[in-house]
């Protein structure tokens, strides 16, 4: 937002690009969970574009992104976040986009030292070089701490009006925002990617191990964002809806999985991913009963529906081994 405004102040036409990898946080969690209902459901990139009065192009890079996540040349961050490779990938995509759409250069909001992995002094040149953008990549917020880029050398933009921010503090940006008259802006300090989340990353790794390969479909990674994930055995796991919102969302996947729910008591929808035996199905039904209002009853009726027309009702005792259940949480 600040980088864009800085360049727009020089009378330059700017349009925004937002890449959707499948792991973006905003929107999804807001849309699914009941407890998130009170929060605004705005998409921050659209909101920012509207505040700035610029066009925004949202680009689906889900398929191309797989290779970045599966084979990151520069490795992962604290969890499964391939931040440096991700940035290189996105700047490369932006370079292709500007060539196809008649734009002259790329700007990003990067600041030297802002982030521990992808925004260090040593890594900023790597992004420029390995993306192929080279000196068509301008970082208006810290440009004065970097060598002049082509747009600066050619006088397309005035280097003197760019900035020299460094470090992790957001204070200079907040002061700049105030100067521009921005009273509301997206909260800084990351958190916009599920791959930086410890629990999500654990579920992703578990899925890869269970599938025996790292390839994935969008639905696979979407489902990792929803519900409690419980793996009682290597060959199957359960996804238990945590509230009505998640239950509604999981309803859309019933045809693709074995599903379980209580018929005698209120309770969550549960999806089973894997190939269970009859014994496994009984255990899954027992765990399903544990999360419903019949958890303290002697017996609960659980309906089990298969991917096709198969359905069966069984009576189970709700699962009571809490310590065991905790161990099975992914």
């Amino acid at each position, binding site marked *: 937002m600040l980088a864009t405004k800085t360049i727009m102040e020089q009378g330059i036409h700017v349009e925004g690009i937002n890449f959707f990898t499948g792991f973006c946080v905003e929107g*999804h969690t807001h849309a699914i969970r009941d407890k998130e209902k009170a929060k605004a*459901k705005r*998409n921050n*990139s659209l909101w920012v574009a509207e505040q700035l009065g610029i066009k925004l192009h*949202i680009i*689906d890079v889900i398929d191309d992104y797989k290779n970045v996540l599966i084979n990151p040349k520069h490795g992962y961050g604290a969890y499964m976040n391939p931040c440096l490779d991700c940035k290189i990938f996105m700047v490369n995509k932006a370079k292709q986009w500007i060539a196809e759409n008649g734009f002259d250069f790329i700007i990003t909001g990067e600041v030297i030292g802002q982030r521990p992995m992808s925004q260090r002094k040593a890594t900023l040149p790597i992004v420029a070089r390995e993306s192929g953008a080279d000196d068509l990549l301008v970082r208006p917020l810290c440009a004065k701490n970097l060598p002049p880029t082509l747009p600066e050398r050619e006088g397309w933009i005035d280097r003197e009006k760019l900035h020299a921010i460094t470090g992790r503090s957001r204070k200079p940006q907040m002061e700049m925002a105030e100067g521009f008259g921005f009273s509301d802006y997206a909260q800084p300090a990351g958190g916009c990617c599920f791959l930086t989340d410890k629990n999500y990353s654990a579920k992703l790794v578990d899925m890869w191990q269970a599938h025996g390969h790292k390839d994935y479909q969008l639905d696979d990674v979407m489902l990792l964002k929803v519900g409690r994930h419980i793996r009682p055995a290597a060959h199957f796991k359960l996804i238990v809806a945590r509230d009505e919102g998640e239950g509604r969302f999981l309803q859309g996947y019933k045809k693709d999985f074995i599903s379980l729910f209580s018929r005698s008591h209120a309770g969550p929808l549960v999806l089973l991913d894997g190939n269970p035996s009859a014994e496994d199905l009984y255990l899954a039904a027992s765990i399903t009963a544990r999360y419903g209002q019949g958890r303290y009853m002697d017996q609960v009726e659980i309906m089990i529906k298969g991917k096709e027309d198969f359905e069966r009702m069984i009576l189970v005792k709700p699962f009571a081994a809490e310590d065991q259940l905790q161990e099975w949480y992914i």
Partner: protein
Amino acid sequence: MSRETLNARRLLCPLPVIRTQDKVKQLMPGDQLEVIGTDPGLMQDIPTWCRINGHKVLELGSDGHDYIVVLEVGALKQ
């Protein structure tokens, strides 16, 4: 002028916006597009996207199950 329907059910934002954006590229100014989805986020995101890109929202509502936005493609097509 034509009217087309986009099924965005089961998609979570921003995917309904992306599909809308891609569909609008194939339409002409004045054409109408009905977007039907299950993510309540589209009720905010698609009107914002329309304002940014010069399209007009004609209808915005829900039938209790799906969320529906009808838009008219503007002259400033992406």
